């Protein structure tokens, strides 16, 4: 008699655990639904575009869209590929008339700190002058030279130097 009660109790407990496990399983199935919350936030993001007025503000110019241009050793004249890059940047600046940029002139590690500071400025100035000649207002373009102090490639070979002789375009405000 007692054995029977024990059996029943044992099965009861077993059943309880099985139920518990399955319920846990259910919860685990729910867990993947969390992305659903994300999908609800996404609609929030996308909702601002739907209203018709925003077309002018939403598309913003990304710094990565502006092309970095490169130079020859100890030179600050614009190569054909640099001019092509500047033409590309000019189109973007025309498209986004509120963007104000700063052109950073950089050099490779060869030569002295002082000379490269002047050379970097010459490079930034060449790029600035080109854009102004194309019709961009001088108020929208400032320049700074970092000489050889901020290389993007720390290497000591021609490949690294070629990458480091450059003008970068930074967006100050838009």
């Amino acid at each position, binding site marked *: 008699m007692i054995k029977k009660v024990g059996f029943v109790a044992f099965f009861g407990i077993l059943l309880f655990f099985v139920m518990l496990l399955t319920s846990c399983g259910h919860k685990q199935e729910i867990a993947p639904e969390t992305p659903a919350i994300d999908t609800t936030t996404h609609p929030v993001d996308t909702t601002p575009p739907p209203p018709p007025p925003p077309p002018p503000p939403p598309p913003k110019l990304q710094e990565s869209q502006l092309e970095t241009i490169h130079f020859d050793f*100890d030179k600050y004249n614009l190569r054909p590929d640099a001019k092509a890059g500047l033409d590309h940047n000019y189109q973007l600046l025309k498209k986004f008339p509120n963007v104000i940029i700063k052109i950073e002139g950089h050099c490779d*590690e*060869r*030569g*002295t*700190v*002082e*000379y490269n*500071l*002047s*050379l970097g*400025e*010459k490079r930034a*100035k060449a790029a600035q002058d080109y854009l102004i000649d194309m019709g961009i207002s001088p108020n929208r373009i400032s320049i*700074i*030279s*970092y*000489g050889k*102090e*901020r290389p993007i490639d720390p290497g000591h070979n021609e490949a690294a130097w070629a990458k480091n002789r450059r003008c970068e375009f930074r967006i100050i405000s838009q």
Partner: protein
Amino acid sequence: MKKSSLVFIILFLTSFSLASAQGNRIRNVFFDTLRTGNIQPTPIGVDKMKYIGNQYITAQDSTLMRYITAVVRYDIDFYADFELIPVDSFFLTMYQITDLDLLSWLRLGADIVVKLEAEFPGQNIRARWRLYDTARRQQIAKGKITENKNNWRILGHRISNEIVHTLTGSRGIFLTKIVYVKKLGKAKELFLADYDGANERQLTANGSLNLSPCFAPKKDEIYFTSYMNGNPQLYKVNIDSKVIKQVASYPGIIAAPAVSPDGEEIACVLSKDGNSEIYVLNLKGEIVKRLTRNRAIDTAPTWSPDGRMIAFTSDRSGTPQIYLMNSDGLNVKRLTFQGNYNDSPIWSSRGDRITFVSRTKSGRFDLASIDTSGYDYRILTEVGMNENPHFSPDGKHIIFSSTRLGPRDIYTMDVSGRNQRRITHSGNCSNPNWGPIK
């Protein structure tokens, strides 16, 4: 015709200087160096410091004596006019020599011997130095210096300064300071150290780019270019208080400051005209004079020792070359025609030569030297990328940065290119400048 007469003049000067040097026994680096190209430094032996007190010496004091001996030996070996005779401890042990007498020093090759003695009254070191002429076996000079035990390094340098002054008549440089730029992450900060690289300490800590430090000759100040407020502008820092003050602010860059020999003016580069031009500012940062008017790059001004002329770099010919002009900007004359990259000129303290960075045929950047007449171009280094030379205040040594062992570090050498030494060992060090003798 012209060349042969020049050779004759050089030969004449050489023989004259050699004769006068021999008459003197102590040879002056300025006569030998660069004129003959072959320097004959005076060989000097430095005996180890001995205790002359009447008590037992403590282990600590004995260590101090070893350190002071090492400082004096380093200084003597460093100095352009001298050459340290190494003491071969193996030789001494072999022949059971505990004390080198003057005859032994003479046999080792020493013309002059320095003997050092010390006592330790209280917290002080009282040191005596004596100079001996080994050929004549007699004492030629002596002196006494007392310093606190903590200042043992200063004590050693003071002894060396007195030895230099006694033997050459010039003031020693062993208590001077050097400043250089060290890269810390993305920032470049100014660091100050003793002339031999000891006692390094950080001067600026603004996390920005701090470049081209230049000592003022009479005050404890260093002028430099810094990006701390965005654009590269001119600042100065006091080396004791480390207080930084802005000196000048103009549109564009302010670069390459060079304080005039009288300490009253600063030659530097301003680009407010849309292009790098050399200007002279007063100590308040106001423009005194514009010296160059050229669409090319004009930079790296350096004063002649009398302050009447300025050497600078310009790429007006298409490549960077060294030019000379009067300090009012008139009478510009091109000095270098060798290779396609000559930059960073410095004027020798005697005013007769310019040392600069020259891109040599191998594509390396080496230090080179040329007479202000434009003759006698000589390459002084032959390994690594060598940059930013500056003279020691006595004009006998040059400090510069080099990548010869991989990392960029600070090195020194004699004006002739002899005796090249590494001063910093951390890497990422550049842009050195040497402070005045006080």
